[in-house]
């Protein structure tokens, strides 16, 4: 096993290339610039194309064109840039095209700041753009997992013909960790017979997001909804730790899950039975797992780098069975294990717990 010390953004780019990505269209924005920079050097080495677009709007529409043409294609950006891409993402979803979008999240709203945040959860999981569609969202908690998951993103995108997002906070993009680049797990997918390549002697293909007849748009949305349900059934991912006898469940994703784990271990050492539930896919959300644990634990604590976004999905999953508390830091401030530990102590001591920021 060869491991190399590499920055998260560069690991994501390298893993994408190894997964067969040969086209990248992007626009500079901090803190994800190492991805386009790496791609501008790396893609020509493997016969691929890097192109710096005039805007995020243009970049995502170049992705639309290349995806429709049958290529494995990726774009990356950070929060304000992802907002600009939402139009294109809606069209890509509507045209049933596979692509990978990386969002290295910074604080917001607006121009916000450039430090790590998780405040794009709503945008990523609840649509972002207009219309009835879903984006599959993977949320790695380490650089290794980011490299592994970006490879998986391409397979999921191609299998279901959907846009897939890899969402990491600024820490995932900027920190260096040892990474082993594994062989991508190929799913044995079919050729893209639907791609626009020119007729080439066969039937022509038309890529379109236009469904102007109401009945056709209705049927299209139902067909896609069936695909989204299949994705929810087969692709939901979640990791649990120390949950077997847990009485308090901490729910956290991304790098915050690692902070939360330290707090969980400290609480365990103090005799409090806590455990960690870490959603790896944010959509589909591991609602069933959380719902099951609601029968076991006394309460939940959701920890996020936002003012409280994923906590809404946790509450929907728990469905009123147990109290769900929240602790968050936002605006680029990272919660500390001590702060999370203190929240757990308050809960264990039965103090009345208010949502806490």
């Amino acid at each position, binding site marked *: 096993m060869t491991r190399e010390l590499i920055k998260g953004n560069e690991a994501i780019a390298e893993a994408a290339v190894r997964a067969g990505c040969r086209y990248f269209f992007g626009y500079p924005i901090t803190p994800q610039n190492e991805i386009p920079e790496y791609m501008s050097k790396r893609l020509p080495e493997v016969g691929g194309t890097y192109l710096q677009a005039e805007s995020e*709007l243009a970049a995502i529409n170049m992705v639309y064109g290349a995806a429709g043409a049958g290529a494995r294609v990726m774009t990356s950006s950070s929060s304000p840039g992802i907002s600009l891409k939402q139009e294109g993402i809606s069209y890509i979803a509507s045209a049933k095209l596979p692509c990978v979008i990386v969002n290295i999240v910074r604080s917001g709203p607006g121009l916000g700041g450039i430090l790590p945040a998780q405040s794009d959860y709503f945008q990523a999981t609840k649509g972002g753009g207009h219309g009835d569609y879903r984006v599959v969202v993977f949320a790695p908690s380490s650089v290794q997992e980011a490299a592994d998951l970006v490879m998986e993103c391409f397979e999921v995108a191609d299998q279901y013909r959907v846009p897939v997002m890899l969402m990491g906070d600024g820490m995932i993009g900027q920190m260096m960790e040892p990474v082993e680049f594994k062989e991508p797990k190929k799913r044995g997918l079919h050729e893209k017979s639907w791609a626009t390549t020119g007729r080439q002697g066969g039937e*022509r293909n038309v890529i379109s997001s236009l469904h102007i007849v109401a009945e056709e748009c209705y049927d299209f949305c139902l067909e896609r909804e069936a695909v989204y349900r299949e994705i929810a059934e087969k692709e939901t991912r979640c990791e649990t730790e120390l949950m077997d006898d847990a009485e308090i469940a901490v729910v956290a994703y991304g790098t915050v899950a690692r902070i939360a784990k330290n707090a969980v271990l400290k609480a365990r050492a103090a005799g409090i039975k806590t455990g960690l539930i870490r959603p790896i896919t944010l959509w589909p959300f591991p609602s069933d797992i959380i719902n099951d644990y609601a029968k076991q634990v006394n309460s939940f604590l959701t920890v996020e780098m936002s003012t409280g976004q994923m906590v809404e999905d946790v509450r929907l999953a728990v469905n009123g069975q147990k109290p769900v508390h929240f602790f968050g830091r936002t605006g680029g401030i990272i919660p500390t294990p001590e702060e999370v530990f203190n929240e757990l102590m308050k809960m264990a001591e039965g103090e009345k717990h208010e949502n806490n920021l």
Partner: protein
Amino acid sequence: MKTIYKKPDVFLSENMHYCPGCTHGVAHRLVAEAIAELGAEERAIGVASVGCSVFAANYLDCDFTEAAHGRAPAVATGVKRVHPNALVFTYQGDGDLASIGVAEIIHAAARGENITVIFINNAIYGMTGGQMAPTTLVGQTTTTSPGGRNPAGAGYPIRMSEIIATLDGAAYVERAGLYDVPSIARAKKAVKKAFETQVHKKGFAMVELLSTCPTNWGKTPVDAMTWLKDYMIPQFPLGVFKEV
């Protein structure tokens, strides 16, 4: 009986949704003839835009990708980069190209993107019901300039061909008109040249076709052609603006 002229096979026999007298049908036919004359039916990929020509794929029998409003040059860039030997073209109206998609068209031209752009300029938004366009003439009445376009608040029409011609990546830029038989014959040559520019990998090519919109101009088809000739051409002079 001897056939001396027939429509190319790539031009489908669908009934068109375009209004009577609209020149989109003529422009579609010129595109179909150019594709056929270059023998490129099997490697042509069109990028349709948003506006009346959103249904272009219904009439041209080649691969198509339908783009978001204004984004056709970016979509075509993605297609062309994946299939450099395909004949990739966009078909865009004035709202699409000269308003919401200005950044995309300028930068596709600046990159020398090896694509062909067919730009339909009829000085109005057709599909949405006759609103003021970026190419609406000063004084022209539309549903959003009911007193006529007043430059004091609404500014002036944009001459896209002249702007694009200033860019080093643009290899061929011409403005032609579709208002009588001779002008259509000249437009046909321009469209073919714009496709040949791509075949010879010279860079970005655009043909602006001055077109009529009788319905939203409130004119008969014949009067619309006369108006195009008398009023649009002085604002948008015909000619070749760039050829390398």
